Structure formats: C-alpha cells, structure tokens
C-alpha cells in the first residue's frame, strides 16, 4: 500500500481515497474526462455512478452535475446519496445539481414516430442550455453530465441506436466547448450482435476511463460483490510509462461507501 501517496491525495481532494480513485486518477487533472461504466445483469455498476456523483458534489469543490435519469427516480438517488453523506435536495436548491427525470418525460410522446428524434433533441437542448448557464456563472467550475442508463435511452428512442449515438456525439462536443466531464452507464452484455455493437464500441473508443463491473467467476459471495476492471487510457501529457493502465480489484458495496481491495487482501 503506498500510504504516502494516499495521504497526499486525501488532503488534495478532501475525500477518502480508494483504489478506484487511484485507478481513475482524475484528481490530478481536474475533470474533463469521459468515463464509461459498463455492467451486466449479475452485477450492477450503479454504485460507481453514485461514487462520481458524490465526488462531484463534494462541499470542497464547486462542480455542477447534470444528471439524466432513465433508470430510477429522484427519490431513489436522493436516499442513496443521503446515506453517503450528500444531500441532493440541498444541492438542487444550491444550483449545483440538475436532475432530468426521463422516466416520465418521454412517455407521452412515445406514440408519434417523428417525436422519437424530437425527444432526444429536446433533451440535448435542455442539457446545452443548462451547461451554458452554469458555465457562465463562474469560470472555474467543472460540469459533469451523467446518464444512468444508455440502453434505456435507446429503448426510449424506440430502437434507433443512431439517434442515441448522435446524441452522445453532440454531448461529447460539449466537452471541448465548455470543458464538461461525462459519466455514462451502459450494460455491456446487451450488445452482442454486430449491428448493435457501435453503441458500446464508439463510447468506449472516445472514453478516457472505462470501468467494468463483473461478477466473480466463482459465484456470489457475501463479502465480495464483484470485480472492477478500470482501464485508464491516460492523457497525452502523461509520461509514456504511465499511460494506458489496467487495474483489477474486488469491491464490496455498503450503504454508505464501497470497499475496494485487491484479490486476497481481505481477511
């Protein structure tokens, strides 16, 4: 355990440091990263999303989160994040957290065929407007855009993965313009056939960090909930040796935080 390094980062960020933080390594270059989280039926990767949400809304920073929810309503996230020590309701009032509830928003215009594109276009317009407003408030803050289930966005668009891809590309363009970060969650095991693959491969290609949550090969256990594989592509300014790192470790999800540890280091 590199304890010295750990301590330094702790003071830098004011947050408990973990293997995940270390592997992702965003603490150094302050945002502007694209993170893709992938999970499967057996192991949910939603906790990684919660982690990034808490991290961005930390009281020390002034970052803003735009959260696009397809999977769960606000009450679900509010309750989880409150247990982790972060009050979303308060953050919403403080203009640091914008929650776009897509569970209900796209339901009414499901019938019309033309509305499919309009729904996503309207959503992008909403995001862009919010990002514009937030970035005009102060120069230094990072805006993180989170999507909690890309596959459900595809369902909402009635199967036109091209529209979803377009949407994602538009969103990525905000990265250059406003310096936004992206965290998206998708289910890897859905995409097996060739015509659906672009939706998982293209975001992976554009991502800086890929985090995969998988079950253990040996089956479920009560004290190890699964393993995370973190692929950090590293930025161009990094030294050659440190770029593109793959880390692999186990995790155990608890109500208020997540334990990360290397295989076999748990007694």
């Amino acid at each position, binding site marked *: 355990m590199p304890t010295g390094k750990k301590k330094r980062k702790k003071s830098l960020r004011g947050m408990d440091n973990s293997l995940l933080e270390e592997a992702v390594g965003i603490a150094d270059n302050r945002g502007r990263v694209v993170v893709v989280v992938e999970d499967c*039926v*057996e*192991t*949910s990767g*939603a*906790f990684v999303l*919660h982690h990034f949400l808490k991290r961005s809304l930390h009281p020390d920073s002034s970052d803003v989160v735009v959260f696009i929810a397809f999977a*769960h*309503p606000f*009450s*679900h996230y509010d*309750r*989880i994040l409150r*247990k982790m020590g972060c009050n979303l309701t308060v953050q919403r009032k403080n203009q640091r957290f914008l929650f776009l509830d897509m*569970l*209900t928003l796209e*339901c009414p215009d*499901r*019938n019309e065929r033309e509305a499919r594109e309009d729904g996503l276009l309207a959503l992008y317009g909403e995001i862009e407007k919010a990002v514009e407003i937030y970035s005009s408030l102060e120069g230094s803050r990072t805006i993180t855009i989170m999507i909690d289930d890309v*596959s*459900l966005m595809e*369902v*909402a668009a*009635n*199967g036109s993965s091209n529209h979803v891809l377009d949407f994602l590309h538009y969103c990525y363009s905000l990265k250059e313009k406003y310096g936004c970060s992206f965290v998206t969650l998708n*289910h890897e*095991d*859905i995409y*097996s*056939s060739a015509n*659906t693959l672009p939706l998982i491969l293209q975001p992976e290609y554009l991502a800086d960090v890929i985090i995969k949550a998988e079950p253990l090969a*040996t*089956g*479920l*256990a*009560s004290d190890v*909930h699964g393993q995370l594989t973190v692929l950090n592509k590293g930025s161009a300014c990094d030294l050659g040796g440190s770029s593109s790192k793959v880390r692999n470790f186990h995790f155990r*999800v*608890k*109500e208020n935080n997540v334990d990360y540890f290397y295989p076999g280091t748990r007694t």
Partner: protein
Amino acid sequence: MASSRPRTSSFSRNISSAATSQIPGVKLGPNGTSFLSSGIPDLDQILGGGFTLGSLVMIMEDPEAPHHMLLLRNFMSQGLMHKQPLLYASPERDPRGFLGTLPSPMASKEGKSHEQPADQDTNLRIAWQYKKYFGEQNSEVQRGGKAEYCNDFDLRKPLERHFYSGQRVDCISLRDSPNLEPLLERCSTFSAQISKSDGNITCAGRIAIQSLCSPQCDFSDKDWDMLSFIRSLKGMVRSSGAVAVISFPPSLVSPTFVKRWLHLADTLISVKAIPDEDKELAKLLTGYQDMLGLLSVHKVARINTQVPAILEATTFSMKLRKRRALVLECLNQAPVDGSSGSSYGTSGSCSGSSKTGNHDF
C-alpha cells in the same frame, strides 16, 4: 402523518411509518420501501419480505411446463385476500377464466402447521434492532385469518366465487389487439387510480401479465414495442403503489433482446420443471421424488439502496406440502462419494453456505 401525533422526545421512533402499514397486505421494509406478499410464504422470506412495492417482477417461464402459473395464481389470490385492485392480462381468449383457477386459502389452523412464529421465538435469539422486522410478521400472523400478510393457499381447492365477484378485477386478452397500446392504456388508468396521493400510498395494486411475448399475440415480433411497453410499465408502477409481475418465455424473445428484458426487471425469477425420470439428478438431490420444479432467484429489487442482495442460496426446489401448499426448499445435495470437500462452487447447496459461515470467525 406524523404531525398529528405530538412527539415528546427526540428519541422516539418515527411513528409515521406505523400509519402506512395500516394498508391491508402491505408490510414495511428497509430504506423506506414496503412489501407486498407474493402469496408464497417461503418466497416472501427468500426475497426478504416479499415483492417491493413499485417494482417490476419478471418470471422466466419454462416453455414446457406451466410452473409460472403457480406463482401468478398465488400472487393474484393473495391480492384478492387483501381486497386489492387487480389487473390481469393473458394471451388466452377468455382471460377471466383465470379467476376460476385461483387457489383458495387454507383454514388458518392447518395451514400454520409449521409453526413459524413459535419457532422464531424459541430457537432464535434476534438482536433487538432487528426484532422489529420479525415482530411485524408475527403480529400480523397472529392477528387471525383476515389480516394475514401472507396466506397459505390450497392449490387443489378453487377460490370461492364471492371473493372475486364483488371486487375490482380487470381482465384483458392480449390476443385481439395488434399492438400494446390498449394494454398500456389500461395499465396507466389502473395505476393512476391507485397512485400515491401526496406521497402516501392509499392502496396497493397488483398487475400480472402472463406470457407477454407468446406467439399468439400479434405484437410478439415487435421487439422494441414490447421493450418500451415494459419500460413505460416500470415507470408507471414505480410512481404508484403497485407491483407488476410479467411472465415470459425467454426462448421466444429474440436472443439480442433477452438481456435487455433481464436488465429491465427489478426482481428476476426463473422457474423450471424437472424431468420425471432423470436418474442422474435423482442421485444428486435428496427428496427428488417430491419435487415439482426448481425456482431460481436471479435478481432482487434494489430500490433506494445500492447494496446488492446476496442470497444464501439462489436455487430452490418447489414442492407441494400435503399435496396442497406450495413450499420452497433449499436444495439438499446428496453426498457425492469420493469428493466430500469439493462443494465449494455450488452456490445452491446448504452445506456450502454453512461452510463459508465458519470462515467468518
């Protein structure tokens, strides 16, 4: 809610929760969720209390056996016991015929032959913090026939007519409509009627859809329509006080879409019949003769929490007690000669789970 009761000390337990539990057939669970009974006492116990209110339960059918109907029947029968509004959709021409097949509850005395409450008090010492979870269950059982959270059902005795003649039971046939619009409309009116008024659940509802993608339905080839229907249903159920159970044959959903279906489910259960004369399986499992089939729990609803539910066993055998009541039992694997210690990878075995328990100390 709580404002009506003056709270004398800051340490008093929040009583508002007790008020919501007055709804018949709803039990409070952790993280501000509530449970509905599945109609099978053992399944309730396995899932930690029952189906979570506002969740979508999916049952993967065995294409060769109607075991999923057992679950659906018990689920709906339990709803009738609690006088909850029901919605049932099936690909049959006459979906109302389903009501005639519902099992009737056993007389409470003979049904409780396994003496659950007495057992728990004597054999098990529960830490006081957790007592509230068990206490509720006990009190509910002891209150007598009517208020029972979960009944035992006699599968051989059909439910008497007066149970469902006076109640709100909507039945829809999936066969005649070319798309899912009518069903979605019915579901949305149904959930709107029972939806939470200003945050409080006034009444719990049950939606059961049998064999959603069966080939009798005209829409069975429209994969995206079915997916978006499930997604909309999930959204509806989540915002109202209802539980939706969908059973579907996974082999008939096109292979690229099955995973999407599984991801949409909050709780995922599969049932499987066991072949009559499987000599190898009979050697492996004790009590093979009494088994009706196997039930596996793949996913348990995780609402308002990020901690995954890790069950001690995921596969259970479905048996009939006294040829009447459906019970679920942990699989007991008969010892295999020559390799006594190698039951590590079998998650379903009881011996395996007790072994790992020893490592905790």
